[in-house]
């Protein structure tokens, strides 16, 4: 599903002395099937943006279009529930939403609300459990007896079981250790490809943006600051530093290298191995004079 924001504004507590603009004149377009990273600091409007994606809030002005659903200030899609079944959101620390007696019931909760049949739910659970790295024997256990990392996976499974077309991830790896982070992100990447999802990843991590996204949007103070391909946007050190963001470490190295040696190696999302070979070629193969 395509996602389009047109001049979207959102004001919290409109009409009170505490009114405050969380989103200002925000416009962008996410084509169906893309993997987008949205980057910005706490307070940049990221979490408000997410809430627009499945109609938890409506724009104060402007239009949000998700597939065939339109959200404006005075217009709600007739079937909000249907929209929510198409856009799955994994919120920050999603394990906080677990509440059922067993893992199985908790995963089934979402699809049940959206009217999916028992048989279909059982089938989906069988597929999802191995995909998120859980084992079948956990299904009958209480989610509260699991480790933090496992609870996170159960919560994610609960969203995936809805089988959404658009998957919104709000810092899905926060608080996990490096191994857990990598496993979860790789799982989302697999899923994105296999299911042909549109994935929106909200993150602080430039490394994740470079590694997984094909398009990045940088938010600052509720408005779009930059947008484009990761290799074009995430290499602009000066502009990023202005909003207190850093370039990814590999880009940082290439920039430092250029400063020191006067040799520019362009960043094309190459692997560390390729960077090493480039450096080797320039320094020992007399690459400067080629």
């Amino acid at each position: 599903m395509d996602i389009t924001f047109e001049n979207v504004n959102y004001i919290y507590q409109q009409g009170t002395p505490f009114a405050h603009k969380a989103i200002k004149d925000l416009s962008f377009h996410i084509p169906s099937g893309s993997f987008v990273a949205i980057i910005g600091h706490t307070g940049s409007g990221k979490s408000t943006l997410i809430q627009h994606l499945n109609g938890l809030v409506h724009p104060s002005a402007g239009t949000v279009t998700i597939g065939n659903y339109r959200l404006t200030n005075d217009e709600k899609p007739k079937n909000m529930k249907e929209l929510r079944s198409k856009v799955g959101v994994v919120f920050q620390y999603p394990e906080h939403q677990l509440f059922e007696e067993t893992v199985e019931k908790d995963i089934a909760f979402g699809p049940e609300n959206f009217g999916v049949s028992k048989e279909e739910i059982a089938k989906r659970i069988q597929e999802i459990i191995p995909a998120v790295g859980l084992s079948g024997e956990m299904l009958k256990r209480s989610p509260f007896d699991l480790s933090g990392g496992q609870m996170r996976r159960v919560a994610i499974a609960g969203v995936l079981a809805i089988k959404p077309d658009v998957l919104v991830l709000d810092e899905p790896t926060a608080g996990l250790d490096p191994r857990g982070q990598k496993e979860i992100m790789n799982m989302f990447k697999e899923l994105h490809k296999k299911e042909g999802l549109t994935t929106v990843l909200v993150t602080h991590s430039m490394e994740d943006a470079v590694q997984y996204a094909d398009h990045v949007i940088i938010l600052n103070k509720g408005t779009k600051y930059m947008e484009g391909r990761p290799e074009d946007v995430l290499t602009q050190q000066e502009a990023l530093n202005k909003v207190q963001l850093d370039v990814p470490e590999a880009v940082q190295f290439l920039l430092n290298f250029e400063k020191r040696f006067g040799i520019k190696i362009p960043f094309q999302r190459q692997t560390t191995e390729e960077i090493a070979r480039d450096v080797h070629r320039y320094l020992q193969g007399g690459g400067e004079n080629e």
Partner: protein
Amino acid sequence: MRKKLIEFRNVSFRYGDEEPWVLKNCSFEVYENEWLAIIGHNGSGKSTIAKLMNGLLFPQEGEIIINGQQVTEETIWDVRKDVGMVFQNPDNQFVGTTVQDDVAFGMENRGFPREEMIKRIEQNLTAVGMQDYRLTEPHRLSGGQKQRVAIASVLAVSPKVLILDEATAMLDPKGRQEIMRTVSNVRAEHALSLITITHDLREVVQAERVIVMNSGEIWDEAIPREIFSKKDALREIGLDVPFVAILTDELKKTGMTITNEPLNQEELLEDLWTLHLRT
């Protein structure tokens, strides 16, 4: 030789008789004014070590000596004077209704006179750069700001050791930087030992010594540079290897000789520069 401040002697711990051991026969020392980093994946036993140091837990086997005193039910209140701790969740350790009330909490518990509290609140909030937020309520602060207040609160009672138990784990990169900067400032200004517990290898670069935990055991103990050179082994126990270390490895594979394991990009570029001049 520096004075020993904390000593673990063959310490083992588990949460119950039927439970698996969380910590197995651990022995190590922490010295006065030292910066020690303890690193390991979630569940490696690193946070248990912190709680044992503060008498929040007691070992089933072995003994823990802090500042010459064994940690027991009788000595915990003395021990807690020496050992200050900052926990992971910024919200769940903020007791006061305002910043200054929170900084005062530890001092109130220890019966500090009011004038002394006011003086120390000012001093310690300034040390962590939060002096302008004295009367702010916690829900108006960012995670990083709350953690800085937590650091000020602990420093206010002048402990001999400051333990940061994954104090940056729930923060965004900006908050993490704030805390790391605050910590090095504090270290420059106060004579105290610092123990940082983390799963992020980038946070151990400044430490003098690193203990690597794996499945309840001390897996390695070395200076950061040495730890950085053991990439494959680190990856195996679930830790992330920093970019510089990976790049160094890849450069070596291309046949370049990099003598000293670099800890950051500057060091690596310096090495490359010397190499470059020679060719």
